[in-house]
Every structure is written in C-alpha cells, then in structure tokens.
C-alpha cells in the first residue's frame, strides 16, 4: 500500500466491480490487500490492539456498505475512513496508560535481556507517542511505521509536504526530548 502502482489501482477497481455485481467474497481480497497497513496505523494511533481491531472492522464494514461511492483510489479512501475512525476514538476517550498486549507482538528476539530492554523501550515509546498531539502522532506513524513518502502522506491527508515535514520533525524532537535521558 506504500506506493500503489497503476496496475494495483486497476485491480482494485476490478475487484470492486465484482463485489458490486454480487460477489461478496471478493471483498476479502481488499481486506487482505490493505488490512495490515491499516491495522498498523490504527494500532499506532490508539496504542491498543483491541481498539485497532474494532476500528479496522468498523471501517471495512462501512467501506463495504458505501463501496458504490468509490470513484477514486480505494486504498486512499479506506485509509481516510480508518484515519477518521482513529481521530474520532481519540476525541472520545482519554487514556492515561497505553500499552501493547504481549500476545500481539512478534517474538523473534535473541535473548531474554534484549527482550526486556525492547519491551521497556516499546512501552516508553507508546507513552511518549500517546503524549503527542494526534496530528504529530499521525505524521510520525505514517512516516516511520508505515514508511510512506511525504508526497503520499500529503495526498492522503490533504495537506502540504511542508506542513507534514514540520509535523514529523516536531514529533521527532518531542519524542527525543521525552526519551533521550533514558535511552541515549
């Protein structure tokens, strides 16, 4: 989903045509194609695997119901639904503690000491991310976790590359100020 080629875009369109013709199962192709990137976004924004799953599920159901209204890129459209779902959730809830469940993490680390260090860093980074303004957190997650270019971010968020660079830079500076005493 990072840089969708024209072929992928056409393929999405073909899949959507099949779904609109009554092939309900074809929607699974779109879920499999885009869910990982969207899940990472929701998880980064909310800090909770359960909430991220709920937002993902609600977003895909909404996308299915309104699939006939897609006139542009499906990946950009579904991203906006998920991003708005995350923003709505953040508006409605205030959480003092954010942490990932251990079950949702990959477990390919070498030693128990490294595991402990990484778990601590992960928790501290979660807390630091949660303390950022949502727009800064969103920009940081899209740039560093989702690996998007500034141009793609600008297109998805309907803003300028300059504004996004500023948000990412501020997010980095805030995170560094919060974490460097312990980790530098």
């Amino acid at each position, binding site marked *: 989903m990072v840089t969708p080629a024209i072929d992928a875009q056409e393929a999405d369109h073909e899949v959507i045509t099949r779904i609109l013709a009554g092939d309900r199962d074809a929607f699974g192709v779109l879920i499999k194609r885009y869910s990982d990137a969207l899940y990472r976004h929701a998880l980064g924004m909310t800090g909770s695997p359960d909430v991220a*799953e709920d937002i993902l599920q609600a977003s895909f159901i909404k996308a299915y119901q309104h699939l006939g209204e897609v006139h542009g890129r499906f990946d950009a459209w579904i991203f906006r639904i998920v991003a708005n779902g995350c923003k709505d959730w953040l508006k409605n809830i205030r959480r003092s503690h954010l942490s990932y469940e251990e079950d949702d993490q990959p477990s390919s680390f070498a030693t128990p000491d490294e595991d402990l260090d990484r778990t601590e860093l992960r928790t501290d980074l979660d807390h630091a991310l949660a303390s950022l303004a949502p727009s800064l957190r969103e920009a940081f997650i899209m740039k560093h976790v989702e690996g998007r270019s500034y141009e793609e971010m600008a297109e998805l968020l309907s803003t300028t590359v300059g504004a996004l660079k500023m948000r990412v830079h501020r997010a980095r500076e805030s995170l*560094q100020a919060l974490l460097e005493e312990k980790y530098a």
Partner: protein
Amino acid sequence: MLDNLDPRDSRPDEPARTRGDAPAPVRPVSDREVPLAGGTAMADIHAWLDGEVPESAVRRADTAHDVEFWNRLEKDVEVRRQMKTPVHVYAQIMDSLPEKVPQVTPWWRTEQTVSPMLLIAAGVGLLALGVAVGALLLR
C-alpha cells in the same frame, strides 16, 4: 522618514517594554508553521531520518548522541513495521458484512464535504458578483 520603534505606538494603554522584558508567548509551538530553533545538528538528523543523506554524512562528534538514540528507536519501530493484522480479524469482518449487495451511487448523490474556507470564499465571490452587477445596473 525615520522608523518609529516605540512599542507603545500600537497599544497606547500599555507601558513601554524595557529591553529586559521577555516576549510573551504567542501561540502553542505545535501551531507554528516555522522551523524550530534546533541548529544545524538537528536539521542534519532530520535529513538523515528523511532518507535525504546517509548515516555516515551525519555521524559527527556533535550528532553521535542523536544518531545512537534514533538507531535504538529504529529497532522498535522496525518491529511495529512488521506487525500483521491478527488472523481472526479477517473472518470477523467477513462475517459482519451485510447481506445486501452495495449499490452504485452516482457522484452527484454522494456525500459532498465543503470546507469553511471554501464556503467563505464562495460567499465573498457571490458578494463581489452582486456588487459588480449592482454597479452595472446603477450606471
């Protein structure tokens, strides 16, 4: 003509500020669209993190501390980058889809959003048009 630098000029009720007064904060930092004062070292770190220059180009005595910090953080970010949607979510979504097949909606029946700025611009445009038409009619 000489510039008038008296700070009281625009606000006659306020006493003049002395040189030692700290300037009042204007807006939260997050709202400002100008670069923060971070020096060239931080600018170099941003350029590296943005993929514009290699790590070797920014690793110096004054940036070594920052480079180490971001390399350490990158290890955790890499884990997040590889996260997958839990397997049960796919089935949950498919099971929750409504039975009704979605219908094609013509673009003129889709939901349209208008930003406040666009609304204001349209209002100003209409007002200008009205003034122009009025001026023509009154000639």
